């Protein structure tokens, strides 16, 4: 029994880090721009499709270009649409980004067809790692490493670089940042692009695991919203802790009561919301009070 539990927890961790990666992008977009981006899942799907297309055209190495390309698309969307939502009622951003999600899904279907696209892990990552009671596939280990590296890199960027400081300051007091002579609109465009790029990285990593189809985002984006709610809106640390918790809780629920697996993350969210309505690491934000 212990063997399978160890394997399930390890498996839950991998699932969790993918959720973290999707959720962090969502959380950053909200935390810094105040926009709840319903189209986040669509950028996740766009990342997977771009990776598939690049792989078809140029092979595996080209796949790393998918997230920056999607980030550029995200920046174009920010300049043309999202920018108009800043400071407006949150409901408006929900409606507009929801419409955007439908539009991007329809565009994916138009460009690549309604059928799914076959996409398997690269041959270098085929196989299973068995270490004592632990059983995990090589590709999932690679996902764990890549995601951890991305998250550490992102944290270091936000915490230690001057640009990261501007982002954090801009999210709390945009007027003061502008008074200091910083071009805030350009910063915000970059932030939205960063969020979309993170969604795309998750899409690229998930593409060999999950079916690449126009509606693939639906299965990924709900857990991400739950993770953000549990961790606290806008909290990087919260998204990491909550994502891992959701992954592990779901894996263990599958082991003991499979039919309740999907409900388990909502039960966790419900429990956290009752005890801490702002989420585990949610802070009081003057802008949203």
């Amino acid at each position, binding site marked *: 029994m212990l063997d399978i539990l160890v394997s399930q927890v390890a498996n839950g961790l991998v*699932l969790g880090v993918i959720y973290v990666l999707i959720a962090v992008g969502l959380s950053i977009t909200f935390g810094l721009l105040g926009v709840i981006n319903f189209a986040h899942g669509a950028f996740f799907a766009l990342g997977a499709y771009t990776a598939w297309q690049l792989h078809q055209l140029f092979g595996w190495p080209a796949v790393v270009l998918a997230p920056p390309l999607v980030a550029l698309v995200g920046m174009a969307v920010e300049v043309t649409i999202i920018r108009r939502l800043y400071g407006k009622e949150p409901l408006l951003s929900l409606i507009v980004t929801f419409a955007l999600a439908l539009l991007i899904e329809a565009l994916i279907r138009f460009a690549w067809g309604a059928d799914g696209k076959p996409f398997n892990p690269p041959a270098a990552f085929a196989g299973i790692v068995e270490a004592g009671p632990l059983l995990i596939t090589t590709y999932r280990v690679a996902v764990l490493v890549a995601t951890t590296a991305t998250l550490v890199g992102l944290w270091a960027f936000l915490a230690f670089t001057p640009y990261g400081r501007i982002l954090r300051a801009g999210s709390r007091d945009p007027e003061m940042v502008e008074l200091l002579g910083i071009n805030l609109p350009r910063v915000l465009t970059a932030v939205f692009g960063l969020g979309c790029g993170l969604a795309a990285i998750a899409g690229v990593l998930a593409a060999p*695991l999950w079916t690449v189809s126009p509606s693939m985002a639906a299965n990924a984006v709900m857990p991400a919203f739950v993770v953000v709610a549990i961790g606290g809106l806008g909290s990087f640390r919260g998204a990491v802790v909550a994502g891992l918790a959701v992954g592990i809780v779901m894996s263990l629920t599958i082991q003991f009561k499979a039919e309740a697996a999907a409900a388990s993350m909502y039960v966790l969210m419900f429990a956290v919301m009752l005890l801490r309505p702002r989420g585990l690491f949610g802070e009081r934000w003057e802008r949203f009070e």
Partner: protein
Amino acid sequence: MRTLREMRRLVHAAVTTALALAGGSALAQETGPVRIGMIYAKQGPGASIGEYLQRGSTLAVEQAGRKVLGRPIELVWLDEPNPQVSQQNMQRLIDENKVVAVVGGNYSSSALAMMSVANREKIPLILTGAAASEITGKNCNRYTFRTQATVPVQMRGLMPFVSQIGKKIYFLTASYAFGQDILRSGRGLLKEVGATEAGVDEVPVNTADYSSYILKIRQARPDIVVGGLVGGDFSNYLKQANEMGMKDRIPYAAIAVTDTDFWDVGPQASAGIYVKPWYYNDPSNTAAEKRMTADFEKKYGQPPSDKTWSGWIGMRALLEAIEAAKSTDPKAIVTALEQWKNTDGEIPFFFRDWDHQLVRPAVIVRVKKAITDKWDFFDVVRKTSDSEADTLKAFGGRDEIGCQMAPL
């Protein structure tokens, strides 16, 4: 007095106009285009299946020269996103588009909603998917026909074959009506085929990651997994089972799958044994089916899926019934469909007159050891029954089905 005369004149004019309009519209109904509705998914996870169904139905119309009773056919295609909107679209097709019949409905939940409208409005509906037993069982009605075999019928074809591979069976089924139907039927047949249950998992719909389920299956060490997953869920499972080294280790068997589930994941991840209504590369396909395959390949540059066949046979049966009835009168179409019989192949197939279920054997297929063609994934193993009598028996008797149909 004058007012009374004026009023009489007004009433007279109104009645004359109404009669003229009614006469004109009756004339239009008999000589104008024949409108036929289609309800197939255009968006969401079912969009790909919807497209293949629609292409099949449209091809049947094109093969008929886009005419029936010498009149042009107009097709109106509306979406099947969920039961509520599918039902509204069914009503719209009848009220606004004035269709004479509707072909469509891939999901049991939508089909059940649509068929109540068909019955109320007395418009023939041919369902091209939807496997829930109650559609031609306790909820059956005179205006609804169904091409897809029910879950128990398909499971009766699959389980004896599965038990030849191994006796320890693990059930992995979707946690809603369709999956529960598979689990119930599968469990009911365990004793008959001499097999035992190694484990059961009922999986919530729209599960993206199956790795935790696969770990459980590996631990239970069954001889075979009998599945009841659909669409994207099934494709996700196939992909991850391959990734976790299950492909050549524990075989997978299932019913109600479609070719696109496999085309979506590709040859590398595809494996297993399946019951399907039809396969394009089955040597026993009829001449008409082979012609449909050729026409489809010519038009779309790829072979048709079994969903294309379902859409095609549903529309073809309807057009042949309208020709046989020599009328677009709903009652005449229903009577003609009840008498419709396809005798192209070795085993004739038809809609049974007392429950409107298409009685026809399915094919059991196995994924090829080495897939060399982008589309041709299967070897046909056998049919689920070998004669008309066996097929009828497999579909169950009146008492078992429980359909009580009202007179026309």
